């Protein structure tokens, strides 16, 4: 049985079974990452284009490593996608890419829905590596994978996501992913960062951090974009944010004693969390990075038509 989707545009399109399949395939690739020789020939002869039209270091590096470990031919393109700058349109880009016949297109774009647009114009499988404030499905999958590797069952899991939920693709994908897996998700932030309608996605809304953290297994802090302070009037400044919504040692006492601290990176230390929390024993932030490679290998493998049942044999 092959993976049933041509492209991975968002968690919204995935069923619980789809997510569990991806996580279990990722498990196999995680083991490969622990071997001395980490390279397998699985995607030899396949062309993967990494189209990053918005700056990204970490996600792109993670995909590139995943592609190399699978022996795929990875090509990096980073054209500017500024809406004000005249030049090639996204449709032109799509047509040019199609002419190169890639097998998989990994795509990051500033505009929500850009991967959906490209998906209608290109035959290659598309993996959404982040589109505007819409979705970042691979981040959510790697977060779920990280949680599962810590031995936490999703059915009894309570997760708090803290920060600028309204403008976060990570938050939207994580809410969808974790609730589909059976977890309870609370979101927390000032009301300027929590759009109405979050309940429709399956989340519970809290405005006080201590309420959000009360008894949770996982506290996931989002990166705040410092430029959103002041001008857009979402919050007065970073200082107030840190005091009201930043994670510190004292606040973590509200969580379960063995609760995890997560962050999609890169961290603004002293804003979203104190350095001692980021580097503390409950932080799995670096484990998230390692998981990211395994999950992306799993997705590349599945999108290239690999069978979820025979990963080990083939690799």
């Amino acid at each position, binding site marked *: 049985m092959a993976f049933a989707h041509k492209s991975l545009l968002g968690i*919204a399109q995935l069923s619980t079974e789809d997510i569990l399949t991806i996580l279990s395939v990722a498990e196999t690739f995680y083991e490969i990452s622990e071997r001395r020789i980490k390279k397998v020939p699985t995607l030899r002869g396949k062309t993967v284009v990494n189209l990053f039209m918005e700056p990204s270091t970490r996600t792109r590096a993670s995909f590139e490593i995943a592609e190399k470990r699978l022996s795929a031919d990875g090509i990096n393109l980073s054209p500017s996608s500024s809406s004000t700058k005249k030049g090639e349109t*996204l449709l032109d880009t799509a047509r040019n890419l199609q002419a190169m016949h890639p097998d998989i297109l990994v795509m990051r774009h500033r505009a*929500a829905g850009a991967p959906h647009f490209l998906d209608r114009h290109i035959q290659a499988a598309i993996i959404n590596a982040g589109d505007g404030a819409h979705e970042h499905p691979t981040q959510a999958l790697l977060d779920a994978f990280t949680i599962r590797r810590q031995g936490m069952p999703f059915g009894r899991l309570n997760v708090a996501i803290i920060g600028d939920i309204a403008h976060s693709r990570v938050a939207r994908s994580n809410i969808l992913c974790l609730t589909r897996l059976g977890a309870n998700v609370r979101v927390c932030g000032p009301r300027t960062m929590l759009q109405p309608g979050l309940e429709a996605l399956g989340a519970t809304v809290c405005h006080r951090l201590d309420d959000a953290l009360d008894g949770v297994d996982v506290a996931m802090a989002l990166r705040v974009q410092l430029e959103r302070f002041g001008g857009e009037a979402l919050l007065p400044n970073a200082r107030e944010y840190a005091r009201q919504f930043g994670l510190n040692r004292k606040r973590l006492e509200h969580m379960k004693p063995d609760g995890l601290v997560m962050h999609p990176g890169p961290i603004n230390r002293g804003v979203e969390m104190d350095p001692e929390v980021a580097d503390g024993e409950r932080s799995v932030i670096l484990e998230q990075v390692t998981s990211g490679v395994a999950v992306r290998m799993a997705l590349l493998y599945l999108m290239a038509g690999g069978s979820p049942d025979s990963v080990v044999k083939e690799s």
Partner: protein
Amino acid sequence: MGDSLLIRGGRLLDPSSGLDLVGDLLIEDGLVAAVGDVGATKHLEELDAEGLLVTPALVDLHVHLREPGAEYKEDVRTGAAAAVAGGFGTVCCMPNTSPPNDCRAVTELILARAAEAGLARVRPVAGISMGLSGKGLTEVAELKAAGAVALSDDGHPVGDAGFMRRALEYASTFGMVVVNHCEELSLSRRGAVHEGEASTWTGLRAQPAAAEEVMLARDLLLVGLTRARYHAAHVSTAGSVALLRQAKSDGLPVTAEVTVHHLLLTDEACHDFDTNTKCNPPLRSETDRQACVAGVLDGTIDAVVTDHAPHSPNDKAVEFEDAPFGVIGLETALPALLRLVERDELSLEVLVARLTSGPASCFGLEAGTLAPGAPADVTLTDLSLRHTVRPEHFLSRSANTPFAGWEMRGRAVTTVVGGRAVYRWPDGLLPHP
């Protein structure tokens, strides 16, 4: 010329005169001459309307014809052709062209183009402010003399309350109605979708219902102050309908319109990032849609319009947030609205009223009636004709419709303007005799 035409045996439905009977309609010299049982006649051109609905040709208060300046999207001729193909005999075109229609020369250009086309009647709406800039009144008396029928900066909300007050006072001096596109920009930030379900799922920048309601509420207070005639363009929220209902019961001289797409669609249509669902105001919630339908039913909303806003495929084939606002509607309006009749949300009588006598009285147009002596603009509609919306067959130059592929029941089959059949389905435009 033998300028007489007999439309025989149709169901004559004319809300302006309370007419609803099966009978004949006699047209002489471009005017309605008689209705009812005209009896035997000789040497007349006849149109068999048996089994068809015969109404005044439809009137659309809100279209964008893009000429001058963006003729690659639409021009007066293609827009007027799309109009008659949809059963519209009169369309009022908004002034946001390039250059904008803020002076006699542009108004006259549009009227000249419309006369050359000889299809639908095109009645220009001129700007309230010079350059649609929100500053500097236009020459209202001059524009009216040139043929403008109303004033609006559509697409550019009048943000300055003081200017709006002066515009209302000045325009009313000359009996002109002021039309505002209500959108408080500091709240809407020109968001691509409605703030609600669509933005929750897509993460797109959104505009809340309050962005429209804040400005409409302000305008209604200014109407109370000035007692000037005011018309609210494309209202789309439950809150707006409630504000208008109150204003009308308070006796304020206000009228309002709603678009076809806001009566048929909700923001759910935006979930797949289809840019042909991006319009301004954005598609709203189901609650808002139902409130708009209720407003049409009880007369709070006087007119149903298309806000026909053509854009080329290239304009729309971009990222959702970068795509221009607007959908076309002239050729799908009537079939789409007939769905509401089929679903029992609207009665046929009310629908025809909001497409004929309702809009005509908003702008004081000599249209939308079959009263003897009126211009003979008539639409014959086959209520049971099944067809599929195929944008490639549109007479409009653009194809940006959210209704592509919809299976429809009912459409205009003949459109008569000034006593002459100008469109017949499926043949298309009819040549001048």
